[in-house]
């Protein structure tokens, strides 16, 4: 039994700060009267901001802690900063939404904090046990959050997410068990060492890795494990959906990147084909199904599935040491681009949503440009970014992704990506056409935090696309460390 040292705590500091903050806030919230839950929201945001500050000071730091069960490196710090920012956006979107829809509860923000801390633990996990722990810590608050509005649809979404999520967690545990059986360790580096030395049962290890892939594939909503996504995204309160779509996806991909790149490079010949197929199927299925949607939440849910496919593309050449760092950096870059456009577009959806689920059809966006030109312009930016049209972050992100797919020797995959992106223009532009070319009289809600989020993400989507090299270098150095 080793006593933890300063290094151990330093490695896990951002996660520890956020978790302790969330625990204390749970108690503090009990004494905040129902009418003043804004205080809880503010304190939760403050906790995330403080943690974000610590995370930024950790840029460039590298260490492992707690018997190398958790790791701190450029990759985890990049992910931490991205996840904490997502948490801030999540709170900003939730503040007005929960008041308007009569679901003000302090627990909302506390569950969000716990979920973010689980995601951060996921980014720092260096051991399959911690991966599983983090998976549960990030998922369980999300199940509760999905059901928090107590409407029938919201409860259905929560139960559905919980049952299928628990099922997917089972795959992760079973995969971990098989990998432990094959290598005698759950530590990622030790698994790699065993696999490279060739002393393991290759088949057992491959099956274990494939089971892990199923579990993570569920979390990031990759086809064919995406069945839950449209129902859960549509039923959950929109502010929860926005946070879930970005946060759970980032965490899932970050874990996928780390586990596979650290532990299973020797399995690349077998897994590359599987990943190729997963990525292609997800892109095709997500985009094709999105075309026939009339509800904006459902459409964005299928768009989220399609984007999981694009990000998976970054991951196909992971066994090729020459291409992998650029490809994974492209994946990280795309995660940022997706998260920004995602929060923006869900923000616009929240602005138009009315009680009793009205205002969620794509037709409800008719005439938005005439009445609220700024909001319509912002939505146009997000839609263009999700298509991958210049001058937006999404376009740059897709460029990096397709380039890394070509460099890795997968021109077919890049082609599928390109064709499905063109295809996706149809349903994204339908929103734009509705806003600009049809007559209508939409009503929106004005909330300062919502406007701030939408405005900020719209401006960031455009501005950063002119200087993408800066962000890409950040991602690249994060991966190389």
């Amino acid at each position, binding site marked *: *039994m080793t*006593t*933890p040292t300063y290094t151990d705590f330093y490695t896990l500091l951002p996660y520890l700060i956020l978790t302790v903050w969330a*625990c204390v806030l*749970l*108690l503090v919230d*009990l004494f905040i009267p129902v009418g003043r839950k804004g205080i809880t929201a503010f304190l939760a945001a403050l906790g995330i901001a403080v943690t974000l500050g610590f995370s930024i000071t950790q840029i460039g730091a590298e260490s492992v802690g707690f018997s190398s069960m958790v790791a701190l490196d450029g990759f985890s710090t990049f992910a931490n900063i991205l996840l904490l920012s997502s948490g801030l956006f999540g709170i900003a979107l939730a503040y007005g939404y929960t008041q308007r829809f009569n679901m003000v509860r302090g627990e909302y923000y506390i569950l969000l904090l716990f979920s973010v801390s689980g995601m951060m633990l996921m980014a720092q996990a260096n051991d399959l046990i911690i991966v599983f722990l983090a998976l549960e810590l990030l998922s369980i608050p999300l199940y509760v959050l999905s059901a928090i509005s107590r409407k029938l649809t919201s409860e259905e979404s929560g139960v559905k997410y919980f049952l299928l999520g628990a099922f997917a967690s089972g795959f992760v545990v079973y995969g971990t068990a098989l990998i432990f059986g094959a290598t005698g360790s759950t530590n990622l580096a030790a698994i790699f060492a065993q696999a490279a030395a060739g002393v393991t049962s290759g088949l057992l290890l491959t099956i274990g890795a494939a089971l892990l892939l199923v579990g993570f594939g569920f979390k990031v909503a990759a086809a064919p494990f995406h069945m839950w996504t449209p129902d859960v995204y549509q039923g959950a309160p929109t502010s929860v959906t926005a946070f879930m779509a970005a946060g759970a996806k980032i965490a899932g991909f970050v874990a996928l990147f780390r586990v596979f790149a650290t532990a299973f490079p020797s399995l690349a010949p077998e897994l590359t084909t599987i990943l190729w197929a997963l990525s292609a199927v997800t892109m095709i299925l997500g985009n094709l199904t999105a075309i026939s949607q009339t509800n904006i939440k459902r459409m964005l849910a299928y768009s989220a599935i399609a984007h999981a496919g694009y990000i998976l593309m970054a991951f196909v050449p992971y066994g090729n040491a020459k291409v992998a760092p650029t490809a994974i950096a492209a994946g990280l870059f795309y995660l940022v681009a997706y998260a920004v456009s995602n929060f923006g577009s869900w923000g616009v959806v929240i602005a138009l949503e009315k009680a009793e689920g009205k205002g969620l059809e794509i037709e409800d966006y008719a005439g938005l440009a005439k009445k609220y030109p700024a909001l319509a312009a912002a939505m146009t930016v997000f839609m263009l970014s999700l298509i991958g049209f210049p001058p937006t972050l999404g376009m740059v992100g897709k460029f990096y992704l397709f380039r890394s797919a070509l460099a890795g020797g997968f021109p077919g995959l890049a082609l599928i990506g390109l064709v499905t992106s063109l295809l996706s223009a149809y349903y994204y532009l339908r929103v734009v056409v509705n806003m600009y070319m049809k007559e209508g009289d939409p009503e929106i809600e004005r909330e300062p935090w919502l406007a701030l989020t939408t405005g900020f993400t719209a401006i960031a989507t455009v501005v950063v696309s002119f200087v993408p090299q800066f962000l890409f270098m950040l991602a690249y150095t994060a991966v190389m460390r």
Partner: protein
Amino acid sequence: MLLEYIAIGVMILVATLIAFIAIGLGGLFGPKKPSAEKDTPYESGMNPYGEGTRRMPVRFYLVAVLFILFDIEVVFFLPWAIAFRQLGLFGLLEMVIFIVILLIGYVYAWKKGALEWE
């Protein structure tokens, strides 16, 4: 090695066969006179009433959740108590952290009224 298990295998096989034969013979030769009374579920000889699944007050679930909270606490206490001397101060601190986290949940449940039946 494996040969030693053959006896057990044979035993399982024969036991299963006997069970199937007994049930099969009963089905073949036994008299069948079904009636409404015979088809009702057996409930200690009384006439059955109500549904098979009954609605429970949701409070029971709260009690169950609280029970799990303390159940797991005890499960973790036992190994700690056994290895108390080896773990020393570090183990004590770990346990204090663990209890504090549980306590936060307990205070939360208390304040939310989970402990009041009415």
